[in-house]
């Protein structure tokens, strides 16, 4: 961040803006960038999901609004914004309104934690990976409140299921994160990414020692996101729409937006832990080769890193969508059994394996 | 095929025809006999057909045997009530509810009988020939 900050101060200095003002204004910029990127990414994701599902089921997908249906989600978003906000009489008013906000805001924070490139690291604290996992858990409180405040039995069952599900899948995630922390000797996401730099390029990525961990993390992330085959809280064939049955208009849009933004954030987290985050898969950056000017090259490297990050994330997102297209839904009891009896022991074994691996293979690497 | 002589021996007052057995008033005993293993095992009740002949309602029990692949038609004429055969065939429950609903026949022994299609507040039994359409007594309250 420091490099961009200094560029920003220099830039404002040309207009005689004092350094202090620049320092105050500066934090607003990342916020705006994240907010704008989030909206953009969600719009793309919703469209991508529909297109991908259409691809798997031999349909065309949305193709009416804009070229190739590109503006379809924009149209949907406008529709949701303009819709009347229906609130049933018997709801718990304040909580009913608060629930979507609680479900959405943590997602924004999660986005802020992820370092999209070595410079675009907005909230760099030493335990950011731990912070991410913790904050990613908060939306479930919004879900519970939604289920409770809706005063609807379907919503209530949906939110109860949601809690059971998130609680049981939080533990495998923690163990996988622990093994990654052991490998990287750090809990800072940026450090974890940087420690994946190796002379064997792609082989340095943690997916290779920790492939089992990736599988566990992938499954648990899908479960935390309440997506198929773990979409029990909103299983439409059983619970109509689960916890958001009574929501409409902008409140529903917040849940919807939060779900997709969280899907992207979780994928980004997986990419950061296992696929070298913003590192280029070639071991060098194309910008370095193109631009001879060092300052410009450096600036473009940051954007290139962000590009790689987004590319890898979209691959993971595609995988999640693929899973949705193929699998039927699990039963709630099977879901809990699967986590406690299979994933949790597996993740502990994985953790032990990584510890041994680290001790014997990588020990020489620790400075 | 069914053993008519044996049936006649047990139930002297029934009329046995080519394609049906006619029983006065209450068919429960005959059906329970037909269902029992010592006779041809009529294990399926395919349906109960009720027809309103103004003076009486005719119930026709259609039995089927998966063992001998035979259909049997047991006919009885009833006025207002008759014995329920839910104890013999559980599938009779909906049929009896339907006949109770549409013909107003009460089935004694079926504790759970209720109107199947029409709302509980409906006046009259639609499949009776005497049913008046657009009855003024009918109040749309639910």
């Amino acid at each position: 961040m420091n490099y961009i900050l200094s560029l920003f101060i220099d830039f404002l200095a040309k207009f005689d803006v004092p350094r202090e003002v620049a320092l105050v204004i500066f934090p607003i910029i990342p916020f705006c960038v994240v907010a704008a990127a989030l909206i953009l990414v969600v719009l793309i994701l919703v469209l991508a999901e529909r297109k991908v599902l259409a691809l798997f089921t031999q349909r065309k997908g949305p193709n009416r609004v804009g070229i190739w249906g590109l503006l379809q989600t924009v149209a949907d978003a406008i529709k949701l914004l303009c819709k009347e906000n229906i609130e049933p009489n018997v709801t718990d008013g304040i909580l009913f309104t608060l629930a979507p906000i609680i479900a959405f805001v943590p997602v924004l924070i999660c986005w802020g934690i992820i370092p999209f490139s070595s410079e675009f690291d907005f909230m760099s604290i030493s335990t950011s990976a731990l912070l991410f996992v913790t904050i990613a858990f908060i939306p479930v409180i919004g879900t519970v409140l939604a289920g409770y405040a809706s005063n609807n039995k379907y919503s209530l069952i949906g939110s109860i299921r949601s809690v059971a599900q998130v609680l049981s899948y939080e533990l495998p995630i923690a163990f996988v994160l622990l093994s990654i922390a052991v490998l990287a000797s750090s809990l800072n996401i940026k450090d974890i990414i940087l420690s994946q730099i190796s002379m064997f390029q792609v082989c340095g990525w943690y997916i290779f020692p920790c492939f089992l961990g990736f599988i566990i993390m992938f499954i648990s992330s899908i479960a935390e996101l309440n997506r198929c085959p773990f979409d029990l809280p909103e299983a439409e064939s059983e619970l109509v729409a689960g916890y958001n049955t009574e929501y409409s208009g902008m409140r529903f849009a917040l849940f919807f937006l939060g779900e997709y933004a969280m899907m992207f954030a979780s994928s980004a987290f997986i990419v950061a832990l296992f696929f070298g985050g913003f590192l280029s898969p070639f071991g060098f950056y194309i910008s370095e080769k193109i631009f001879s000017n060092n300052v410009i090259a450096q600036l473009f490297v940051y954007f290139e890193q962000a590009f790689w990050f987004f590319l890898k994330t979209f691959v993971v997102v595609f995988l999640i969508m693929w899973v949705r297209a193929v699998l039927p839904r699990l039963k709630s009891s099977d879901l809990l059994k699967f986590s406690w009896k299979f994933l949790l022991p597996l993740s502990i074994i994985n953790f032990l394996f990584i510890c041994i691996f680290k001790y014997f293979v990588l020990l020489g690497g620790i400075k | 095929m069914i053993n008519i002589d044996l049936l006649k021996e047990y139930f002297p007052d029934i009329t046995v025809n080519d394609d049906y057995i006619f029983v006065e008033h209450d068919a429960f005993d005959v059906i329970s006999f037909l269902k029992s293993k010592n006779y041809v095992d009529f294990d399926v009740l395919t349906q109960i057909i009720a027809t309103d002949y103004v003076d009486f309602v005719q119930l026709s029990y259609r039995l089927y045997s998966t063992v001998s692949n035979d259909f049997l038609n047991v006919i009885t004429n009833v006025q207002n009530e008759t014995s329920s055969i839910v104890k013999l065939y559980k599938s009779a429950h909906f049929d009896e509810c339907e006949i109770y609903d549409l013909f107003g026949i009460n089935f004694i022994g079926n504790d759970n009988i209720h109107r199947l299609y029409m709302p509980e507040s409906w006046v009259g039994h639609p499949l009776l020939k005497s049913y008046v359409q657009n009855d003024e007594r009918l109040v749309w309250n639910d």
Partner: protein
Amino acid sequence: MTNLLKTMEINVGPQHPSTHGVLRLVLELDGEIIKSCKPVVGYLHRGIEKMAESRSYLQYLPIVDRIDYLGGFFNSYAYCDCIENLLNVEIPVKAQYIRVLCMELNRIASHLLWLGTFMLDLGASSPLFYCFRDRERILHIFEALTGQRMMYNYFTFGGVRFDIPNEILEDISSFVEDMPECIKDYENIITTNPIFTSRCVNKGIITKRNALQYSITGANLRASGVGLDFRKSCPYLTYDNLEFDISYADGGDAYSRYKVRIFELYSSLKIVEQCIDFIRSSSEPILNKSVKPVMLNIPEGEYTSIVEASRGLTSCTVKAGGKTPYRVKWRTGSYYAVQLLPELLVNCEVADMMAIFGSLDVILPEVDK
């Protein structure tokens, strides 16, 4: 003071995404376990039996397609069969083969829709689209043949309304050629899927005794270990000249019902293939001209037809009474399957409800009539 062990009463339907129409189930839940279940039917009651009493025999014919809108040909045939038998008329052999062809194609379409919605109930969205893709081909054939996609009104007293043109026969035979591959595709993504099997195997077991007690027929009965198919045991039309197998499974669970229905798709295709061969080579008339349907006046009499429809035994009883039927009674398969629900659902989880209910292939217009 509130009772912490109180059960929750939840109302599923009549407007619910997976009750396949307007079934209402009043469930009593203890956590996610169903403690009691009460089906409430009648939301789609149109008085189809009462309607017959004020219409002529021909006027009633288009209505019967609506009893089971996914298997209109079966109802249509059941009614026509009654009238033909009451009038004592023979129908030409070619018309019989055309009827068999239509009914078997209809059975395939109906089973495909069942498969799609069943998988949707289990949460898999893709199979729905594959099934609808193939069902669409059948509906196109029906549209070309009868002018309607669902309510065909194609069979008439004494035969069928139109001959099948050669182009449509070509369409049908190319469909029959492609279909086995498609069914294999479904089986590849469904049959051995661990999530699917874990949700279906040993779920909603109908014992043989229960199946007979509740008068379950069709694929549901065959999945309970009774090899009863009225196409074989009481052959109607030309079924005794056709070669086909009936299958049955012993499990009685949702998975057996799935297996039986998948097998039925193959056997129906086999029947369709044989029908095409006959229809191609035959130049007989398709209608018995001696029937004058418009002013039918049938003397008193009674006939019950027996049809193995896609959801079990469909039978129509017509008691003739001059110019209008005195009484028409319909017996349908789903009607009895709904009655079985309380027996199957008690002590199951809510998630199992969908697998069990979906596997029974219940369609509500058939129940409510």
